[in-house]
Structure formats: C-alpha cells, structure tokens
C-alpha cells in the first residue's frame, strides 16, 4: 500500500473574527480535495467560515529540545509586561 495520500494540516477561521487556528489533520491526494475533506471532517457544526490547508511536510517546526534556549531568555525580561511598572493611583487608568 504505497499509494498513501499525503497528510495535510487543517486551519479554520471561526466565526468570531479570529485568526485561523489549527484544528487537526487529514489525508488527501491534493490541496483541492484536502479543502473538501476538511469541510466534511472539521466544519459539520458551523465551526468555521474559512479553511486553510497545508501539506504537513511543508511545515518546519521548532524542536521541543530547544525549549530552553528559545524561550527561557524571555523569563528574565519581566519589564516587557505592563504590570512591571507601578503607576500611582492618583494617575488613574493608563
């Protein structure tokens, strides 16, 4: 059985004006069929108004083992969050 259809990742935009979100994957022979299948598999209950599909082997992912070097530096930069700064009550909302 070497004629397996390629794997596609499916992204759907919900009805709330949000960006497309990954919902799952499926197999399809080409992009057109992937959209059709995604419509059947992932939008049976009004979950979306727009579908993106991308062939899974076109996705480059960061490695889980790189978690440290990639994300730890942000932990020490607490001043990037607005809550770092004390604003006196008299100043009011900011």
């Amino acid at each position: 059985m070497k004629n397996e259809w390629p794997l596609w990742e499916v992204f759907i935009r919900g009805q709330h004006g949000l960006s497309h979100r990954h919902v799952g994957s499926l197999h399809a022979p080409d992009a057109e069929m992937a959209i059709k299948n995604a419509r059947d598999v992932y939008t049976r209950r009004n979950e979306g108004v727009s579908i993106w599909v991308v062939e899974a082997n076109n996705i480059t992912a960061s490695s889980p083992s790189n978690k440290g070097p990639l994300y730890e530096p942000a932990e020490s930069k607490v001043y990037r969050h607005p809550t770092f700064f004390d604003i006196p009550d008299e100043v009011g909302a900011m």
Partner: protein
Amino acid sequence: MPAGYRKTLIRQIGQHAHSEIVGQLPEGNWITRAPTLERKAILLAKVQDEAGHGLYLYCAAETLGVSRDELTEKLLDGRMKYSSIFNYPTLNWADMGAVGWLVDGAAILNQVPLQRTSFGPYARAMVRVCKEESFHARQGFDVMRKMATGTPAQQKMAQDALNRLWFPALMMFGPSDAESTHSEQSMAWKIKMNSNDELRQKFVDQTVPQIEFLGLELPDAGIKWNEARGSYDYSDPDWSKFFDVIQGNGPCNVDRLAARNKAWKDGAWVRDGLLAHARKKAARKHAAE
C-alpha cells in the same frame, strides 16, 4: 518518549479509531430503513460523525510515527482489534435507540476522562469527540423514549433491545480491574484516568434511573440500590462471553471484518485514481512554470 508508552498509545488510539470506523456498520444497517425522513437524516449525521471520530483518532496515532495505511492493514488482517460491542447485530429499529443511548452513553464515560490523558494529540481529539458524542447519546434516548411510549409492540421491541444490549454495554468498560491486562501500566502513565470498575459503576448509576424513567423493566434482576455504598449493585457480565467475542466468535465478527475489507478493496480505484490525477496535475503545473 519511552518506547513502551508509544507502543501502548499506538495500540489504544489505533484500536479506538478502528472502533469508530467499524462502529458505523451496525447503524449504517438502518439508514435506509429509518422510520421517518428526520430519523434518517439524524442517523446519517451520527454515522458521519463516527467516520470523523475515526479520522481524528487516526491522525492522533499518526503523530506517533505509524502510518494510516499500516493501521488500516492491521485492522483488516485482524492484527489489531476494535471494540467488541460492534460484533453484536442490530436487529430492529429499537436497537438504534439502545445503541445510541447505551453504547454511546458508555463510550462517553470512557472518553470524558481521556480529554485529560497524558498524550496531547489524543486528549485534543477526545475534546472534539465528546462534544459530538452527547448528540449521539441523546438521539438514542429520544428513539428509545418514542418506542417505550409507543404501541405495545414497540414497547416490547424497546425492552428486548435493552435486554440484549445491557450486558454487552457493561463489557465495554473492559474486564474487572484485577483481570485487565494493561490497566495498571496505563494508569501509571496517566493514559487512563479511572479504573474499569469505577466507570462501569458510574454507568450503572446513571443509567438505571433512565431505565425507570422510560418505564422499562430492569434488564438484570441483580440491580438493587445499595444504601451503604450510595450506588446500585448489579450482576457481573459473563466474562467468558466477552473473551469469546474478542477471540472472534461473536455473532458478527466475520461480517464486520469482511465489510471493512470489501470497502477497502472496492475503494482502491478511487484512491489510486485521485492520486494519479493529483500527480498528473502537479506535473503539468510544474512543466508550465
């Protein structure tokens, strides 16, 4: 990821996916004979959902490095199992009620805790599945309610369906904890959150009042409220039957696998044709560039 954890997950998720796919057969049996157009549309939607559930689960399994075709092959030649409940026949329309109400009801109890299982892709697939599964259980109960309040003949059918499917539904939670092969390890790995007996008791406790609401007779003379435990006592299913069905000797094992093999074989030209078309189109596009 430890090899044993991966292997266990592939087995469990694959088996779960196969169950969804084979689970289409007993109900598909009644689509063309549903009593009204509305019931037919509802049943069709439910069976379509089962196909979707199978797909979510196969995709979750594939993230573990097993291919879809490999899993399919193992189902078709019997190396992998599916839930034994689908080896029982659906004899009449009341069975559509009992299957949705009891079988999907039991499946929900098994699947709700799996939304918190330790493997993310499996847990996420379960979130979608559980949402859709409530529709299945409710539509089953609705069919049952109609039958149970219908003509004497319909009431008899409802009772008969309940009697036949009660013990097979109890068996869906698997053998008693002491005899379950994989339970302990799966619980240690947090793949499994509750014991088989715990979930089975929950099922009995939630279903008995529903049986009483329907005005049907209890399918087991051993069902009795136990004040001290705050739960219903019930008779243990005959586990020799369970193991017999798993071994391939249930009423429909042969039919189910034959139907899946036929569908796979009959669909080969569609799969190959669409792939050939896609490749040709891609080559043409490539040549034009």
